């Protein structure tokens, strides 16, 4: 299935293939591949959804993939049938791709999607005449309303079964072409030349030859020159000069001829009656993209999205937490204290759990991103924010991914798929984790609540604590600006790619498709959480527990539990005493463990930041997820692991913590340096995993981690050193 972006292709694909869809990446590139298997009329059919493309002269990796699949150059087998999907309301433009697809030489079915929207905007199309003219079956559909699907399925089955065998290619004629005779002549001539080189027929089909002629510098041209030698390159130049002499300059001639043909064709088969409906999009746009108010409305929409996410995800997250505690209790009840139980509850459940707790938030964010994109507003946001994004050296398309990263970088980075410029996309992916995500918030709240004085300004309107919180949240954003500029000038140099963004008509988003996408994304996130984060959590748990004599710990835990089970008042004091002892034992174990030893060994690295080894251990232990540091601090300071950022006990302990020489560990500069470190660090396995998936290599997650950690260290260093001198 191929078609322009914004033609409802995904909706149609989902409607046709149901839930049996397999997603992945095309080999070697970061382009997503979606394949579905269906059974119609007794035949098993594989449907492949190609990335949206405007033409078959590829300008981006997406389009490249589409061309390769169609011409059989990729590792995928050549398709037996191409379904070309057009927006029935915009055939003037959509048919451009269709005329090219017809030249490939494979059977084609033309699908006029969004038929209902076309009708209500006053467009009438004579389907029969169009079908006759183009020589292919033309089926009107309305995927969102599930109309026309049966006819489409029938047509597909018919086409596939009526063909005798595989399609043969001829190098001198190709499919149905509307290009003029001079061009055809040149293609024939070039084809003959290629025939002499002995290339197999599929690699020199008429379509490929014409593409090599019509796309100067394109990948097909390069491929054929490589295969046929410099002689072919010369021949191409000759042909182009010959055509230019006839006023048919390449590449302008192709576009002119195609649009001319389309214009003529549509004047015969299409009638456009303007009515008020057609301008609805314009009227909405005049408000939403207003020069002054449009921007404010955009901010308001964002605020709305974020508040809704926080409001709804809180109870859901609590639910997940509740479930996990229940599970943890279940395990604790059914097993005696021992290494296995500790592994399950403290390693696996708490580690993986701290990531799963974010699942509701992530899913909600995917939902909103999907809604905004589907209804068409996202393009408007990119349009309005382009100038601002230009300050970072990026384009407006990076706006939504970066904003989403303020809630969680995982969906934000996945949303960078809409950025078609490879360099822009990479830079956006690399600075997205700098946006202050919601996992950093508990750390800020803890530090600010404990150490920043509660001074008020402006008669109680402004509090110092709020100012510091705001500063920390926006620190990442401010640092991201120079980082983006540097990246753009060093690793990702190049001219800014052209900004040509289509603003589709507003339409009702298809809830089914969006929920389907949320489900897919959530599933893949959980799958990743289930594997690598699981591994990391276990690793951190193990390094925090061993080596060390665990016996006393389990004895104490066992005693406490049996006392609690007996539930007698007289035992309360004993329980408390034992608990305190248990906490001390835990702290000592942590101290002596691998993690603790590592922490103490690298203390010199952290002391310029004003930290002691315990904070260092906390930071290292928070590699799976940032907020783990709070629980780790709780353990280190003998409070047990079940503390949160509002815990008075933890706050008190932090205030009282001292160095061996008696000096207080925590002070305002130290608190600030911890917050700055967390604002800029990359302690989040989920994010790194998503970067790996989106960039298809290990180099970039490693790079992200390294550069952000260095940045965090330097930031914390400066904060502390300047802080103590003030």
């Amino acid at each position, binding site marked *: 299935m191929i078609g322009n972006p914004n033609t409802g292709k995904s909706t149609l694909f989902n409607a046709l293939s149901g839930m049996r869809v397999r997603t992945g990446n095309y080999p070697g590139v970061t382009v997503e591949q979606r394949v579905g298997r269906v059974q119609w009329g007794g035949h098993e059919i594989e449907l492949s959804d190609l990335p949206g493309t*405007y*033409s078959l*002269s590829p*300008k981006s990796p997406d389009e490249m993939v589409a061309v390769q699949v169609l011409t059989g150059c990729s590792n995928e087998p050549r398709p037996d049938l191409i379904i070309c999907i057009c927006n029935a*309301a*915009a055939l*003037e*433009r959509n048919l*451009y791709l269709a005329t090219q697809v017809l030249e490939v030489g494979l059977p084609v079915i033309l699908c006029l999607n969004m*038929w209902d929207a076309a*009708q209500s905007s006053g467009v*009438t199309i*004579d*389907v*029969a005449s169009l079908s006759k003219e183009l020589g292919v079956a033309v089926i*009107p559909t309305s995927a969102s309303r599930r109309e026309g699907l049966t006819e489409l399925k029938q047509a597909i089955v018919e086409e596939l079964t009526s063909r005798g065998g595989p399609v043969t290619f001829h190098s001198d004629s190709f499919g149905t072409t509307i290009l003029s005779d001079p061009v055809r002549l040149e293609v024939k001539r070039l084809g003959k030349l290629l025939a002499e080189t002995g290339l197999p027929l599929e690699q020199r089909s008429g379509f490929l030859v014409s593409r090599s002629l019509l*796309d*100067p*510098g394109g990948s097909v041209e390069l491929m054929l020159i490589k295969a046929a030698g410099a002689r072919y390159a010369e021949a191409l130049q000759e042909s182009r000069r010959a055509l*230019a002499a006839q006023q048919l*300059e*390449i*590449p*302008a001639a192709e*576009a*002119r001829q195609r*649009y*001319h043909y389309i214009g003529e064709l549509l*004047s*015969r*088969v*299409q*009638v*456009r*009656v303007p009515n008020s409906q057609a301008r609805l*999009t*314009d009227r909405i*746009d*005049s408000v939403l*993209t207003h*020069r*002054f108010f*449009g*921007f404010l409305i955009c901010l308001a929409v964002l605020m709305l999205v974020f508040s809704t996410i926080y409001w709804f995800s809180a109870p859901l997250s609590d639910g997940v937490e509740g479930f996990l505690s229940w599970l943890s209790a279940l395990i604790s009840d059914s097993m005696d204290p021992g290494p296995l139980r500790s592994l399950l509850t403290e390693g696996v459940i708490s580690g993986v759990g701290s990531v799963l707790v974010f699942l509701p938030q992530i899913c909600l964010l995917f939902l909103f991103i999907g809604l905004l994109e589907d209804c068409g507003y996202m393009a408007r946001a990119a*349009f*309005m*924010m*382009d*100038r601002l994004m*230009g300050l970072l050296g990026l384009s*407006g398309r990076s706006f939504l991914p970066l904003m989403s990263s303020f809630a969680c970088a995982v969906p934000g980075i996945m949303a960078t798929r809409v950025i078609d410029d490879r360099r822009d996309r990479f830079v956006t992916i690399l600075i997205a984790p700098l946006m202050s995500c919601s996992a950093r918030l508990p750390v800020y709240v803890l530090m600010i609540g404990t150490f920043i004085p509660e001074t008020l300004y402006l008669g109680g309107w402004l509090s110092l604590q709020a100012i510091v919180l705001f500063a920390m949240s926006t620190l990442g954003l401010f640092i991201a600006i120079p980082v983006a500029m540097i990246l753009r000038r060093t690793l990702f140099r190049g*001219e*800014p790619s*052209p*900004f*040509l*963004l*289509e*603003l*589709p008509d507003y339409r009702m988003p298809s809830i089914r498709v969006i929920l389907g996408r949320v489900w897919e994304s959530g599933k893949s996130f959980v799958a990743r959480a289930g594997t690598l984060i699981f591994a990391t959590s276990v690793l951190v748990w193990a390094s925090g527990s061993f080596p060390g004599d665990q016996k006393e710990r389990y004895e104490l835990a066992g005693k406490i539990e049996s006392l609690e089970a007996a539930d007698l008042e007289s035992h309360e004091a004993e329980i408390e005493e034992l608990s305190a002892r248990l906490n001390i034992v835990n702290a000592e174990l942590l101290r002596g463990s691998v993690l603790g030893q590592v922490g103490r060994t690298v203390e010199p690295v952290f002391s310029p930041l004003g930290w002691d080894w315990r904070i260092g251990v906390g930071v290292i232990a928070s590699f799976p997820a940032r907020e783990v540091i709070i629980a780790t601090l709780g353990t280190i300071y003998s409070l047990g692991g079940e503390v949160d950022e509002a815990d008075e006990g933890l706050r008190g302990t932090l205030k009282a913590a001292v160095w061996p020489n008696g000096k207080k560990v925590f002070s305002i500069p130290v608190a600030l340096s911890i917050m700055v470190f967390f604002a800029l660090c990359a302690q989040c396995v989920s994010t790194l995993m998503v970067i790996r998936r989106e960039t298809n290599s290990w180099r970039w997650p490693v790079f992200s981690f390294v550069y952000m950690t260095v940045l965090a260290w330097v930031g914390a260093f400066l904060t502390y050193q300047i802080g103590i001198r003030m």
Partner: protein
Amino acid sequence: MISSTLNRKSGVSGLYSGTKILEICVYEGSNHVARWAGPAILFLSNVRLSLTLPLLSGRGSTIIKHVIPALSVSSFPDFLGGAAVNTLQLADLRPGTSAIVTAICGASRIASRLMEMGFVPGAVVEVLRRAPFGGPVQYRVHGVSISMRAAEASCVSVEAAAAHNEVRTRASERLQLAAH
């Protein structure tokens, strides 16, 4: 600074005052080829340039100080789309106006992308609105709404159109409406 008349002539190909020149080489006798930070490759003939130093320094950033115009229409080769001199560019149009595309110039990439999106000679372009902060501008062509920045819009030459009426084709009388 380039004089304003030259600006008109050469602006069609994307050469403006202040444009960074990346490299200059001599090509086929008196023709010079200059490549700059914009998208196009421009063949200039009979042009004398005096430039600030450094001239070619690898990354070469020089600014044209003074160009003595000796450009004629014929010095623009056909592949630039037969750019006519003294034409209006899409970037010059105000929101609320329309125009007809006469030519697309510039390097292949942007030009072919523009043409695929519908900006072909003869197409009617409506200018809809400009984004906040002086950002991109929204246009409508061939029934599709497309936004682009000034850099891309300056690759499209247009001529002002008379108010165009909605086209009702003769086919509407003969047309048999489909069952849908």
